[in-house]
């Protein structure tokens, strides 16, 4: 029979084990080299850089190495906010989307104007959607993955019924009515109605395409909230009428971007205004029942606005430098490289969202995606999220409260007038104080 472990032996083993674990966890992480920067990024962005291939190329050409730390959303967002507010210098470059960014964290970010003056970006005039990353005159980021909202539609259904590509919102709705009535099991429109920033993003395209805006002045110190003027009200009335008239598939109040992709792939919707980056998935023959039957157009605009096409919110990811970074010049060099024309084409061909006009004109990208001209024009006509302002303080709180109002109107629980008035009051109270 075995002797068993005595009390003394047990304590020795436990003590040694604890000491080992404590020692290993306290072991300092390898310090970054002089020419190395640390970059917190989303796994999708690492993938669009060829899973590090582009960074290796940059290291070979410039001598700058990047330690890429990947983190999925939403842990990414939570960690980033905590790190910035702690003044941590752990990361020299961070990327995030202006669709969910809170302007109150800008005080922890380095304005890039000074770095841009010392060493400008490669052909900065070629970069689209820079306005989405500005606050007043200060530029906080350089875009590196962007995509406007465009109209995705079933060209086979259009051809079947002799429908024209809608230029105006009213034409869009007429098409939606016709398709929903004639095509069994197919709906004529789609809206993201989930109680998150997705519904606000969706609504903003309609708002801007009606000529609406959040503020009347890009300088928030002088601005008034005009969200609930006649244009804003008309936009919300139109947006919610799509559900009222049963032109949307069921479940709209829990619909997001993945619902759009699934519905489009399954042939459940014939038209929808959504991000251009989803052209790939909806047209993927291995996943989509309607691959090859789709086409794309600019988002429609409201009649009487004087617009030539609809306006989507310029949304996308930008590259920022935390104020606490100790390698700002090196980080800036990295950003200059990653956002240069060749890098943009490289990332675009890996499924990224191009941000340079030259990429859209390149033969490689034109071959890669069928809607290059549409995407480029939509980007050129896009507007910052909080039109006319890029980012605002307490954006998260504003989004959280405004989406309740607009989705209440969408659900038919609140008249559009009450909803948009309350939304405007929220924006005024939280942003302007």
């Amino acid at each position, binding site marked *: 029979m075995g002797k068993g472990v005595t009390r003394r032996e047990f304590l020795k083993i436990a003590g040694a084990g604890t000491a080992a674990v404590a020692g290993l966890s306290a072991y300092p992480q390898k310090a970054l080299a002089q020419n190395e920067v640390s970059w917190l990024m989303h796994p999708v962005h690492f993938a669009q850089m060829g899973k590090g291939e582009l960074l290796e190329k940059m290291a070979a050409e410039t001598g700058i190495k990047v330690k890429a730390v990947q983190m999925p959303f939403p842990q990414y967002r939570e960690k980033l906010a905590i790190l910035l507010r702690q003044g941590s210098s752990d990361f020299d470059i961070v990327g995030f989307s202006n669709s969910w960014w*809170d302007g109150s964290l800008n005080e922890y970010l380095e304005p890039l104007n000074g770095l841009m003056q010392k060493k400008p970006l490669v052909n900065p005039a070629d970069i689209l959607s820079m306005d989405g990353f500005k606050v007043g005159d200060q530029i906080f980021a350089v875009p590196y993955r962007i995509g406007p909202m465009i109209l995705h539609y079933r060209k086979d259904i259009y051809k079947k019924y002799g429908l024209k590509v809608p230029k105006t919102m009213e034409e869009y709705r007429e098409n939606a009515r016709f398709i929903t009535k004639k095509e069994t099991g197919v709906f004529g429109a789609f809206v993201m109605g989930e109680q998150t920033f997705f519904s606000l993003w969706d609504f903003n395209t309609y708002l801007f395409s009606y000529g609406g805006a959040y503020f009347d002045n890009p300088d928030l110190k002088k601005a008034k909230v005009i969200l609930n003027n006649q244009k804003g009200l008309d936009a919300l009335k139109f947006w919610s009428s799509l559900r009222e008239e049963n032109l949307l598939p069921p479940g709209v109040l829990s619909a997001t971007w993945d619902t759009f992709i699934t519905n489009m792939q399954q042939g459940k919707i014939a038209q929808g205004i959504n991000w251009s980056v989803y052209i790939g998935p909806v047209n993927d023959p291995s996943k989509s029942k309607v691959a090859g039957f789709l086409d794309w157009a600019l988002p429609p605009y409201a009649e009487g606005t004087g617009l030539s096409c609809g306006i989507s919110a310029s949304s996308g990811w930008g590259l920022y430098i935390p104020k606490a970074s100790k390698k700002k010049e090196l980080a800036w060099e990295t950003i200059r490289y990653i956002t240069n024309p060749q890098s943009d084409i490289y990332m675009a061909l890996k499924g990224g969202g191009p941000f340079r006009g030259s990429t859209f004109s390149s033969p490689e990208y034109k071959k890669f995606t069928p809607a290059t001209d549409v995407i480029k024009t939509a980007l050129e006509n896009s507007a910052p999220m909080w039109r006319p302002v890029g980012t605002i303080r307490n954006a998260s709180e504003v989004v959280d409260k405004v989406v309740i109002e607009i989705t209440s109107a969408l659900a038919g629980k609140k008249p559009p007038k009450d909803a948009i008035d309350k939304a405007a009051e929220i924006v005024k109270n939280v942003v302007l104080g």
Partner: protein
Amino acid sequence: MKRPWLLVLPSFILLVIVLLGPELHGVYISFFRDKEFVGLRNYQNLLKEADFYFTLWNSFLFTFLSVGLELVLGFGIALLLDRKTRGKRITRSLAIVPFIVTPVIGGFAWKMMLDTNYGILNYFLTFFGFPMGTIEWLSSPNLAMLAVIVADAWVNTPFVTLILLAGLQALPQSPYEAAKVDGASYWFTFKRITIPLLMPAILVAVIFRLVFAFREFTTIWVMTQGGPLNSTYVLAMYLYKNMFLFFKDNYSAAIGVIMLILTFLISVPLMVKMYAEIKS
């Protein structure tokens, strides 16, 4: 051994630091705003917020309905598993499978099953004459709360089952034998013998589930993110949003303290009753 408490002292100190440390820090920062001492102002502002009461109501609704459902289902399953049947071990193992699934995965699974247009539940309902998409489980403010309650109950019923099953198996047999001799019916036996004897185990299960259900976040966040129209917006989500989305760490610390107090208020009376039951 002369001082046996010395053996557990290191673990105790570690537990105090790990458990109490963050709690005390949370209480401390709840009296500040941006490093300025503001006393009870965060609490005063919290008590003026309509969202606080709204989420509190949703939390209570979610807690009591989901725990109630878990208790009924858990008790039923425990009674079935307590019987001497073939394949008992396999059945018991299968019964606890939902409990070992992480809440995130469970939430996603239910979200997919309850999808309005492609979910398997709506697909089965088509056999009863309901066209696909008729019932918007997660899009309807009236049904979303029911959906998250069912999903939560699916994940946590095995926990209740295990506790009650352990309790059932520890019950003495003599009262049952006496009742049988006296010709008592099954329902009489269940009501007058099983439930009173099992009360301590029931209370343990209820206390644990009430505390955890009141703080529930993961499953609901994954399924509905508090929507539609705030119908599933619970207190834990209110705290999360204030901390991680609005960056109001001091204010969210105050929410945390209030949650702690409410958890005590829910659990302490039950714990007192439980100890009284055990003593009797």
